[in-house]
C-alpha cells in the first residue's frame, strides 16, 4: 500500500456508448496534494462544478471526482483524487498518487510554510510516483492579495514551463501589482515561479474563490500530458516518434487558443 507502482495501467480508452459515437476520451488520473486548508477541495469544486462554498464533504483519505475536459478535438476525462490534508494521512498518499498521470500541488500564497510542504510533495512525487507524471504547482488564494475584484478572464496565467522564464511579460498578467495588500502575501510570485521552473513544474497562481487560473491548470496539464503517446501505447501500434511531434503541435495550438480568450477555454472545460 505504501509503494507507488509506476505504470500507466489506469489510462485507457473510454467510448461514449450513449451516443454511440467514436468520440474517444482519454482518462487521466490526477491527484491533488498540499498542506491542509490551502484550498485543494475548493480548487476541485471550482473546476468540477464552477462554484465556491465551504467544504461540506467530509473527506476520509481522499475524495474522488470526475470531470471531462475538451481539448482540441479530444476529450479528456479527469479522474480527480482530492486527498485529505492532515499530516498523519501522509503515509496513505501513495495509494492515491500511484498511477497518476498528473498532480496538482497546491500551496497558499498567504502562508509561506505551505510552499515548503508543497516542495516536499513535489520531491516525493518525483521520486515515488509515475516517472512521467505532469506536476503543476498552484499558489492558491490569489484573491486575498488582490485589492479589488478582478475579472477572472483578465488575468491570464503563465505559459507552460518552457516559456516560464518570461512569463512575467505575458500580457494582462500583473504579478506583484501595485496596490496589492503586501502584508498578506507571504510567497512572492517570482520565488515560486523560479522554483517551479527549476523543478520542471507548470506554475499558476489561482483563486478558487474567484475562479482565476483554475481552469488553466487543467487545460495546461491536458496539453502537457503525452496523450498521443498514451493512446499509442494503449493501442500497442503507435509510432512513438510521430506521437511525440503530434503532441508538441497540440501544445502550441492550445497556447494560441488560450491567448485568444481565457474564458472560452473555461467553457470548453465545463462540458
Amino acid at each position: 500500500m505504501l509503494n507507488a507502482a509506476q505504470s500507466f495501467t489506469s489510462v485507457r480508452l473510454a467510448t461514449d456508448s450513449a451516443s454511440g459515437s467514436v468520440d474517444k476520451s482519454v482518462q487521466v488520473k490526477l491527484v491533488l496534494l498540499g498542506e491542509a486548508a490551502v484550498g485543494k477541495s475548493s480548487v476541485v469544486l471550482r473546476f468540477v462544478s464552477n462554484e465556491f462554498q465551504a467544504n461540506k464533504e467530509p473527506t476520509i483519505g481522499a475524495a474522488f471526482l470526475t470531470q471531462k475536459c475538451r481539448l482540441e478535438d479530444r476529450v479528456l476525462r479527469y479522474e480527480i483524487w482530492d486527498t485529505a490534508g492532515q499530516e498523519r494521512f501522509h503515509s496513505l498518499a501513495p495509494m492515491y498518487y500511484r498511477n497518476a498521470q498528473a498532480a496538482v500541488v497546491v500551496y497558499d500564497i498567504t502562508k509561506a510554510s505551505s510552499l515548503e510542504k508543497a516542495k516536499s510533495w513535489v520531491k516525493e512525487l518525483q521520486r515515488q510516483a509515475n516517472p512521467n507524471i505532469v506536476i503543476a504547482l498552484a499558489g492558491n488564494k490569489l484573491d486575498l492579495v488582490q485589492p479589488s475584484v478582478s475579472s477572472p478572464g483578465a488575468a491570464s496565467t503563465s505559459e507552460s514551463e518552457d516559456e516560464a522564464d518570461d512569463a512575467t511579460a505575458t500580457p494582462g498578467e500583473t504579478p506583484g501589482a501595485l496596490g496589492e495588500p503586501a502584508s498578506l502575501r507571504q510567497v512572492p510570485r517570482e520565488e515560486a515561479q523560479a522554483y517551479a521552473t527549476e523543478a520542471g513544474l507548470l506554475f499558476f497562481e489561482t483563486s478558487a474563490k474567484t475562479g482565476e487560473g483554475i481552469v488553466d491548470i487543467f487545460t495546461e496539464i491536458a496539453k502537457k500530458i503525452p496523450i498521443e503517446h498514451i493512446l499509442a501505447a494503449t493501442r500497442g501500434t503507435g509510432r512513438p516518434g510521430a506521437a511525440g511531434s503530434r503532441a508538441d503541435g497540440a501544445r502550441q495550438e492550445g497556447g494560441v487558443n488560450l491567448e485568444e480568450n481565457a474564458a472560452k477555454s473555461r467553457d470548453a472545460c465545463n462540458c
Partner: protein
Amino acid sequence: MSTISTALRNFKEPTKEQLTQIFFSLPSAGLLDGLEKTDGQYVEKMDINAVLSLGVQGLEESYAGKLHLIAPYLAFASLDRKSVRFTIPLSTIRRVERLNARAGIYALSLSTWHGMKIIVQLTSLRPTADHFCSLLRDALKIELQRGQMKLVKGFTKTCYSEALVSETSTVADNEREDGSLISEEKEHAAPRESTYHGGLGLRFKFPGDPKKLREASKIKLWTTYLREHGRNLTLLRYPQCTRLVQVGLPNRLRGEMWEVLSGSMYLRFSNPGYYEDLLKKNIGRTSTSTEDIEKDLHRSLPEYAGYQSEEGIAALRRVLQAYSFKNPELGYCQAMNILAAAILIYMSEEQAFWLLEVLCDRLLPGYYAPSMHGTLLDQRVFESLVQRCLPIIHDHFQVVDVQLSVASLPWFLSLYINSMPMIFAFRIVDCFFCMGPKVLFQVGLAILKINGEKLLQIQDDGGFLNLMRDYFASLGDSAHPNSTDPRARAITRFQELLLVSFREFSVITDDMILSERRRFRNEIIHSIESFSKRSAVRNLKTLGRFTKDQAGFIYDALYKAMCVVPPPAPVNPPPILLTANDGAEDKPETRIGLKTFQYFLSEIATWARNEKIVMNGFQQRVDREVAEHEFIDRLFFFWDTSCRGALSFQDLVSGLDGVMFNDLMENIEWFFNLHDKNKDGFLTKDEVLTLSESFLFIFRYEVGDAYLGAVSRFMTNAFEYGDALLPQAEEGTENKSETGAEPPSPRVIESNQPYLNLATFRMVVLADEVLESFFETDLSASFRLEPVPDAEIPASANGLLGDLWSTIATDSNKKMFHMFTDEIGKTIGKHQVIHRPSIGRYTKLEEPKARESLLTPSMRKSPSKASLTGSGSASASTATLAPSSSSTLTVDVKGASAKASPQIPASASLSPMVQAVNARLMERTPFAIDDAKDDEDETDDELEGNDNDDQVMDEVDAFLEAHDSGLTDADKEVANDLIHAEPLK
C-alpha cells in the same frame, strides 16, 4: 521538518490477562482512578468454572462457563464465549449467599442493586471454590470501604433504562409511535427525578423514520428484557440481547447500550466529574489538534440538523478537544470527528467522551495514532481476508491493479458512518459494539460478496469507488424487487447485507482478527518505517556529500539509537505560547539528546564504542558497549549548530559530512576547531590538554605504544611551541623548571588565554608520522556507514515458530547465554578478552619517530626542551606529564598503558538506559503460543453455532434460538434446583 517515531517498536502483544480484560470490556489499569484510593489494597485475579442461572424459574437456561473475579469487577462468559456474558462492577452486588444445596454442590446467590438474583454454581474443586469465595469477600469489602457502593444509586439515575423500566414513570407507554415522548411536552409541569443522559437526538430528532424503525415495539421488548436481566451496570447479556441489538437499537436507548456494550460505562462510572474537570483545566488551550478540530467541525455529518446549530457544533468541539487534551500524543485525527458527531446524537458529551476513549484505545487500536498503523494494519488484514474468502475478487483486483483500500479505508476509519446512510451505519455500529471489531470485517466482506459480479467488471480504482457509492445509496431498496413473495420483496438490501455478514462470514472471529494482526504487524511496521525513512532523507535540506543510501544508513543508526535510548519527550511550551498559528506544522522536529547521541555515534564511529572480542572456548563474539567520554560530548555540542542542546537528523548528517570527507589539512583543522571552544582561532592551554585527552581516548585500544608515544610527543611539542609563542615578558619567571618534569607554569597563563593557533597545531601534528596518518585517513575512516542490522521488533514474525524464536532470541536471553558460556570458559581457562582497536593500523609494537626535521630552527630555542628529549618511552612520558594541571589525564594515560592486562570493564558500565531497555525486554511474557492454540479452539466453536444469526431480519419475536448452554440434562436439573435453594446459615 522530519519527525521520527519509534513508538511502533514499543508495541507489545497483549498478554493473556490483558486479552481477558479486553474481552470483558474492562478499563485498562491506568484508567481505574478509584483504585488508587485503596492504599494498595488489591485482590488477586481469579477465574473459576461455574454454571450460571438466573434466579427466576424458566426465564433463561443455565449456562456453563467461567466466572472471573477481576476486582473491582465480576465477569462471566459461557463456554462458547458468546451466548451469555456479563461484566458487572462489584459495587452493584448487594448480597452474596452460599446456597444450601445437594451434597457436593457449591453455589452462590448474588443479589444485585437492581434486585436481580444471579446463581452461580462453582464447579471447580472445593478448595478452589473456597478460595474464590474468600477473594470475592475481600474484594467486596474493599468496594464498600471505597464508598463505591454509594455511588451506584446516583449513577443509575443518569441512565435512560432506569426511566424506562421504572413502574411509576412508564416512559415506554408515553412514547408515541413517532418516537417523541408525550411526557416531554408536559415536562415543565412535573420535572422527573431521574435525569438521564441523552444526545442531540432528544432535541434535534433522531435520524430515520421512527415508525419504519419500529421504535415503539423495540422499546417494549427492551423494557421487558432490561427488567428481567438487569440494566446499565448490571446488564446480563443473554442471546436475546444480541438479537435485539442485531435488529437495531431503539434510538433513545442506543447511547446507553453503546456505553454498556463497549464498556465505556465503567469508565464513566469510575471517573465521575473527570470530563468536566478536564475541560475546565484546559480552558482556552490551543494546539495543532484544536486547530485541526476547528477545520472539521462543520464537515461532520453536516446533514444532521444538530450540526447546523451552534449547540451541536459546540458539543462536538468540546468532546473532541477534551479527548485531545486527555491523549495529546494521539490528539485528533480526521474521522474522529465523524465518530464523535455520530455518537453525540445518541449520548451526552460525557458519555461520548468515554466512548471515544474506548474506541481509540481498545476497539480501534492505533487507527487514529499519528502513524495510523492500526488503520494500515487492519487494511492489510482485510485484504488478506478478502484473498482467503473471496479469491476471485481478490485476483481480479490484482489483475486490474485496483487497490481495495481506496474504498475500504473509510469504511473502517469511520465505522461505515461516512459511507452509508446514517440509519444503516448506526445499525452496523450497534453490532460492532455488541459483537466486537470483527463486525467491520464481516460487513466489508459481505459488501464485496454481494457486489461480486459487478466488481469483476471494474477496471480501476475510480470504477470501484463509483460502484460502492451506488451500492450504498441503494441500501434502502428491496433486495429482491422482482420476487413474487411479498416477504422476500420486503427484505431491504441492508438486511441482506447484515444477513450475509453474519451468516456467511461468521467464520471471521475476533480471535482470528487478532492473529491476523499478529501476522502482518511486522510487515506494516517495516513499511511505515521505511516510508518515514525515505521521507526523512528526502526532506533533508542538504545531503552534504552523502548519497541517499548513505544518508539512509545514518538514519538507520539514528533510528536504532532512538529505539535503544529513547530521547526525552519534547517539552511542549506552556499552553499560552501555543496560541498563534505561526504557519509551520508545529509538530516538533525529532531531536536527540546526548545519551541517544552517544549510542548513535557508537554505531558509526569505531572509537565511540568499546568492543571486546570474547573467546570462551565455545564461541568467539564481539561485545559492544557505548563509550562515554568528554570528546563525544564535545562533538555533540560542536554539531549542535543551532544551540538547541539536541541534534536533528540534519545536524547529524551535516556533522558527519564535516568530517567524513576531509583530507589531511581539513581534518587537522576540524579537530582543532572541535577543541576551540570559543572559536577564536586559538586553543587555550587547557584546551590543548583536553585535545590530548581526546587523542588518548580515540587511541585507547590501539595495539602497541605507537599512539601513546605520539600523543606524548605531541604534548611536549605543543607546550614547547605554545610557550615559545607566549609574550616574552614572563621569561624571567618562566624558566624555573629544572628537572624538566614540570611544564610551563600555569600561574602565568590565564585559563582562557589564547595559547596555540591552528598553524602551530598543524605543524606539531605534521611533525609526527602517527598523527599525520591519523588525520590523513584514519580519522575519516573511523566513521563507518554500514547497513545497521534490523533492530528486533518485539512480537512475532510468522506463526508459531516466529513467536517461539522472538521469545527466545531476545537480547536479554542472548546476554544470559553469553554470561553462561563465559563462566564455563573461565573455569576451564579458555576465557579470553581482547579489546578491538578502533583504528587498527598498527598490529604490533612499533616505534615511530618524531620528524624533528620539520621543526623550524627558530622554534628550537624554546627553553624547556628537557621533556622533548625524554620522550622515548611511554612510561617516561607518563611521568613527565603527571604533574601537569590535569589530573584526569594521568588516570587516562595509565589506563591506556595498562591496556594489555586482562582488565575488563564491568558490565556496570553499561548505560543505565540500556539496562532499563533490557529489563523491559525481559518483562515480555511468552503467552503468544498459548494464544495461538486458543485461536484454533475458538474457530471450531464459532463454526458450530453460526447459523443462529440468520434470523436477524425476521421480526423481533422470532429471534430467540436454542443456544448451547454447555450443560447436560443432569447439570441442568442441578442448576434448576438451585433457583429454589435456601441460603445457608
